[in-house]
């Protein structure tokens, strides 16, 4: 297991490098090399998840180790699907999505590394976790987190981009290849699209979590820190989704609006990560039902 995990880690590390190379040297072949390396990592990761599932006899997302590996898997999955969609369905050829790929791989590597550091022994599920709602709940959350992490990467890239080209990004993107091929994504739009992919899952995760809590503890909402923070993440993305409706009615400069939205995403994803793994640092965590690890 540890060997497989390390191997996966190295393949993902390689993927970071390849995606960066792809950004610099934008040959069509390079895109497939990058895609291939990440796919290899993803396949290894899938094997990890499946063997763990078989060994542990429960869906492998109950403790820190399992959820890190599973989160890495979801990030890779969502990104790969997204890239396939851009290539084959949306057909944005010279897409710059590769840089997002590199950033996603960094996050994946972090997760796998965290898994390597954590206790990988198989633990039995406490009675409350033996519910099918849990599986739905967790899968929804991780898919959503994966999509939201992409919006985070996109927001970073957008802000850096704006910093460098200070508003003249249109020209920078179109340049000489623009005539034949379709335009690249603008990263603020990409961010919006990924949030709109992730947000429904976030909502369904919140709801299934609540239904599960009702079945196990008899209350669907108890203002437990973990519950509260998942509500906070949801609220922040909800605000983000409603802002494009509000901004035109304010006197915020049009060119500044995407920057504001990106900054919100920059705040939002760390909140998600905190909900996922920072709960034990809260002063109120000792009163919690849901914070198992550490």
């Amino acid at each position, binding site marked *: *297991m*540890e060997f497989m995990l390390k191997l996966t880690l190295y393949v993902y590390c390689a993927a970071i490098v390849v995606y960066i190379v792809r950004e610099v040297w934008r040959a069509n072949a390079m895109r497939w090399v990058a895609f291939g390396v990440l796919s290899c990592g993803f396949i290894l990761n899938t094997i990890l998840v499946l063997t763990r599932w078989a060994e542990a006899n429960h869906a492998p997302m109950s403790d820190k180790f399992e959820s890190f590996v599973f989160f890495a898997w979801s990030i890779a999955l969502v990104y790969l699907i997204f890239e396939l969609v851009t290539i084959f369905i*949306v057909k*944005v050829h010279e897409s710059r999505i590769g840089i997002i790929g590199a950033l996603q791989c960094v996050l994946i590597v972090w997760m796998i590394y965290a898994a390597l550091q954590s*206790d*990988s*022994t198989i*633990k*039995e599920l*406490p*009675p*409350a976790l*033996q*519910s099918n709602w849990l599986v739905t709940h967790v899968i929804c959350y991780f898919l959503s987190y994966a999509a939201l992490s992409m919006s985070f990467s996109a927001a970073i890239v957008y802000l850096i981009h704006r910093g460098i080209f200070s508003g003249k990004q249109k020209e920078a993107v179109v340049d000489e290849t623009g005539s034949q091929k*379709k*335009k690249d*994504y*603008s990263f*603020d*739009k990409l961010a*919006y*699209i990924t949030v*709109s*992919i992730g*947000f*429904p899952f976030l*909502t*369904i995760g919140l*709801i299934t979590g609540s*239904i599960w809590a009702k*079945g*196990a*503890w*008899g*209350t*669907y*909402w108890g*203002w437990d*820190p973990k519950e*509260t*923070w998942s*509500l*906070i993440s949801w*609220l*922040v993305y*909800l*605000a983000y989704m*409603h*802002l*494009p*409706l*509000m*901004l*035109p*009615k*304010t006197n915020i400069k049009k060119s500044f609006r995407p920057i504001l939205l990106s900054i919100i995403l920059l705040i939002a994803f760390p909140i998600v990560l905190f909900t996922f793994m920072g709960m034990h640092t*809260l*002063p*109120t965590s000792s*009163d919690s039902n849901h914070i198992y690890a550490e």
Partner: protein
Amino acid sequence: MAKVTEPQQRKSKNDSKVWEILCSVKLAVIIIVAMAVACILGTVILQQKSPEEYVDRYGAGLAKFFSAIQLTDIFHSYWFSFLLILLCVNLACCTIKRWRNKVLMIGFLVTHISIILILIGCVIDLLTGVKGGVNVYEGKSVDYYLTRSDYQKVPLGFQVFCDDFIIERHPPKYKLITYVKDKDKQKAVSLKVGKRIGISGTNYAATVKELIDDAEVLHEPINVSDKPNNPALYIQLSVRDNVTAEGWLLAKDRNWYNDTQRDLKIDYVWADSDEAHERLANAATKSSTKPTLEIRIDGTNIVKNVLVEKGNKVSIEGTDYVIEIKEFALDYSKRLVPLSEQELNNPAVMVEISGPQGKDSRWSFSKYPDYQDKAHKTIYKDVKLLCTVPEDFSNAKNRVRIVQNRSGKQTITYIKDGKVISTIDWVLGQNYDIADSKLQIRIAKYFPSHGLKKTVVKSTGGHEGHNHGPGEHHANPAILIEMEGPRGKYAEWVFAHTPPHWYPDKNFAILYEQSGMEVKDYKSILRVVENGKTMVTKTIEVNDALKYKGFVFYQSSYDPEGERYTGLQVTKNPGLIVVYTGFILLCLGIVFIFYVKPFLRQKLNKGKKIKEYYSEEEMLAEHIE
């Protein structure tokens, strides 16, 4: 941007300023952000604690401030409720205002209405619902519950019996932990057979070579060398070819065997020289050790030893005591049968002490020297007795002495009533009659250097003697672990529940231990009785509750020590149906907005060519028609 609002639409509503604000998305964003901030505060500041705790933690000033603006119980504060109401109003207003019977609007309408439904459902529960708990002892019943908020007793109107409470546990699991001392590094490693586990940062490694789920140790006698370092014989006694007893005798260790039924003792002695052999083979009595009694008088340093033989009498100098041995038993509980038929089990001696205050008799046990029979009155408390019986003590009349020496002489001597009857040479595997008894002796094996080979095998089961209740057999797993390090490889069997096993350099250890028996499930068998009639019986467990007359009983806790009561959460949620309807609508609505609507829009806009995946206009005006 364009087409923000149609002026026509605007006029048709009688839009006062307040209405405008209540409909606005600006208010929505403000409420959402305010709620997020409130939630953050609600997890950063301790909630629902006693006033003293706040003073302790935040100081008097801050504590006062917190309680003044209800930061100590945010989620039940008036201002948070106000926020929720405002949210509902905002949602309702904007939904009404933007209501359009268009397909693309479905998602917007459904999500917004569903959130209102969820909140309404929660309010219904809050006003008419029940949230409480009660503990029920096994075999007892309750007809009330306690409210969660202030522990008021509220009658249920029926009785709930807990017929049984069960905690199911997973079978024990075992884990392997490695420890490197100089790095103070401890790590749980996987228990896979054949996998070499390197300890990163060191040159130690461990490999589990074999794993037996339920193992036991077999000690198999083997011969280590041809030199007579630890001579041993395997002896068989038989009557008419039926073996009645057999076993190993070790010259340097356990070298005798008592057959109490036949009043026989067998000794195995090793002679250093031929002369010694001669002497041993022909001597009637080997100066055999005898039981002794040590007499000490407290408060003095008088100590006296006497041989334990019936009738022996000593007077203790310096005192007025005379002590006489009255009786001796090798096994106190069988003291009435002849001594020669008793086995060495619980030896005891009865003495009579005569002194200035008359006679005092008592039993003294060699295993419990200070035992004083409470029923008897001891007069001479200062007389302390300690009876010592040599392990090989025997009173047998018949004796067999097997003697061997280095040069290969080997004889059997038969002695009866202290007289040598015969001495013969013996060879392996041959039966010899023991003089006039019906018994035959055969020396089946001779190991000049007897040793034990420890083998670990799968337990055949059926062995008792561990600390566990009847019926449950706890397996005793063992692993053959190979430890690698600077001094090479060492493989050894390690049993669970044993102390850490150290590598020879005392810097690397492994521990193989049980990682606890985790709880698999809590179950309570509940029975609802109303007007003397049993209405429902159900075994509830976590994630599977009992429902009766709107009440739902959840398995929520248990008596952590005695496991004698079950903790039930009692709820009544009249708003549940509303909340769940809201949940379902919210899921459907949101999926519609983000996964269905974009495609629908594309279809509806078929006439127009879509140049880009998402135009900037569409981006910003995403929801605006």
